[in-house]
């Protein structure tokens, strides 16, 4: 009895809680606060925050592995986050299913109306690879302990695309997954703060006032054939991007084909919502104090910010270049939308366009590079998986 009471006391958080866990519970609370009060990507950051708290409760065993006896019978079951993480994130299932749902929510119309904006989606990926170099340098100078795989996974934060970042990190640097996912979603939410100064610095008011000609209408058939074309090109040129882009195009094909509306509707709602809840809890499980509370996390957060900034800058600069070379006027602001962060970055471009000229509606024009940026970072992810893995 007394010993039981002692056991019970030894089970309490008061007795067991280490400082690191306490700090991580604080981090979880901050994420919840940012999600609810500041509306920072709440669909992900709220579950991640809760997941971070739960995994850091000592004795709750949310991440403990199941124990089996020699005959294969379970002695003690595993924790909820253990099952979610190893079944859905380590395997890559959840990010791929979310990518399918995102595909089913994406309208490629604006991009099809003006395909050369795909170049902006390419240019903005420079943020990814510049950040890889940054991470490699931090590693090389012995400041932080990053391998090439770590550097690649950190760089993908610059892709401004949550599921892609989680997918790559789960394959190349699972230890850094928590920090990478938090950085990716936080900076996506901070796009309205990060991008405008860079966009203003690199453009004149005249450039920001440039009006673009109205987009041509896009036929239903074009929208249906486009995802199939992308899958075929991926098959030919970049098979390592096939899981991500294949699922993305599958979702988009379900959306556009018009004959499987009930599947498309479920992919956009029940399925993506269920997977988002799980993904958040699973990512949160990587916010343990050992994996998050170290100097590398600071490096990841700083490098992520650098990646967003460089991506924004290269998108804007590419748009300026295209504006000079192309016969059609191109407002450099839409280049910043090439980082993706759909649809936030496109809205930022629209807002700055309106600031410069009250009649200048850029939203539709920025949606092209915006969705192109999703393809661009999935391609970059494929290259990284292929290059670092082989």
């Amino acid at each position: 009895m007394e010993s039981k009471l002692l056991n019970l006391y030894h089970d309490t958080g008061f007795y067991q809680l280490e400082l690191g866990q306490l700090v991580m519970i604080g981090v979880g609370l901050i994420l919840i606060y940012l999600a609810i009060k500041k509306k920072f990507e709440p669909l992900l950051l709220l579950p991640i925050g809760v997941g971070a708290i739960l995994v850091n409760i000592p004795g709750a065993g949310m991440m403990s592995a199941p124990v089996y006896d020699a005959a294969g019978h379970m002695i003690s079951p595993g924790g909820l986050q253990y099952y979610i993480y190893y079944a859905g994130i380590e395997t890559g299932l959840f990010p791929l299913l979310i990518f399918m749902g995102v595909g089913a929510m994406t309208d490629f119309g604006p991009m099809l109306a003006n395909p050369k904006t795909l170049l902006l989606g390419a240019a903005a990926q420079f943020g990814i690879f510049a950040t890889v170099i940054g991470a490699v340098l931090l590693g090389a100078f012995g400041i932080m302990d990053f391998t090439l795989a770590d550097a690649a996974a950190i760089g993908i934060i610059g892709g401004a695309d949550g599921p892609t970042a989680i997918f790559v990190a789960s394959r190349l640097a699972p230890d850094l997954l928590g920090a990478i996912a938090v950085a990716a979603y936080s900076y996506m939410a901070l796009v309205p703060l990060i991008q405008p100064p860079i966009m203003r610095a690199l453009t004149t008011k005249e450039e920001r006032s440039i009006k673009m000609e109205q987009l041509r209408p896009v036929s239903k058939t074009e929208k249906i054939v486009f995802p199939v074309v992308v899958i075929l090109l991926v098959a030919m040129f970049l098979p390592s991007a096939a899981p991500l882009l294949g699922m993305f195009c599958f979702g988009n094909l379900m959306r556009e084909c018009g004959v499987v509306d009930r599947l498309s509707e479920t992919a956009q709602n029940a399925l993506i919502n269920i997977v988002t809840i799980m993904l958040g809890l699973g990512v949160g499980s990587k916010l343990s104090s050992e994996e998050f509370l170290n100097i590398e996390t600071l490096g990841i957060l700083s490098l992520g910010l650098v990646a967003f900034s460089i991506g924004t800058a290269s998108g804007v600069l590419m748009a300026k270049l295209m504006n000079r070379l192309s016969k059609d006027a191109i407002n450099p602001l839409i280049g910043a939308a090439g980082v993706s962060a759909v649809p936030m970055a496109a809205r930022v471009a629209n807002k700055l366009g309106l600031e410069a000229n009250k009649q200048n509606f850029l939203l539709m024009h920025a949606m092209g590079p915006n969705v192109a940026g999703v393809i661009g970072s999935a391609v970059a992810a494929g290259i990284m998986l292929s290059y670092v893995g082989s």
Partner: protein
Amino acid sequence: MDGLLDEGLGLMALGMGAVFLFLVVLIFATTIMSRLINHLFPDTPAVLPVANNRSVAQASSKVGVDAKMVAVITAAIHQHRNNKNSN
């Protein structure tokens, strides 16, 4: 250290090269696709491209609801009118 930096630079060169290559190919493929489709099936274009990701879905469901509502309202107004006439 140099090895790692070299690898990083290699990844950057290959990566940006591949991203641009792929998206340039995609520009050509998309342009050809659009021309072919609009040449072969010069159908009335569905809709102007729209801003919101989900606006198409919303629009279609809204249309469904509206159609129902309009029917109900038409009937209701019809009855209302009849009631007035009979009063």
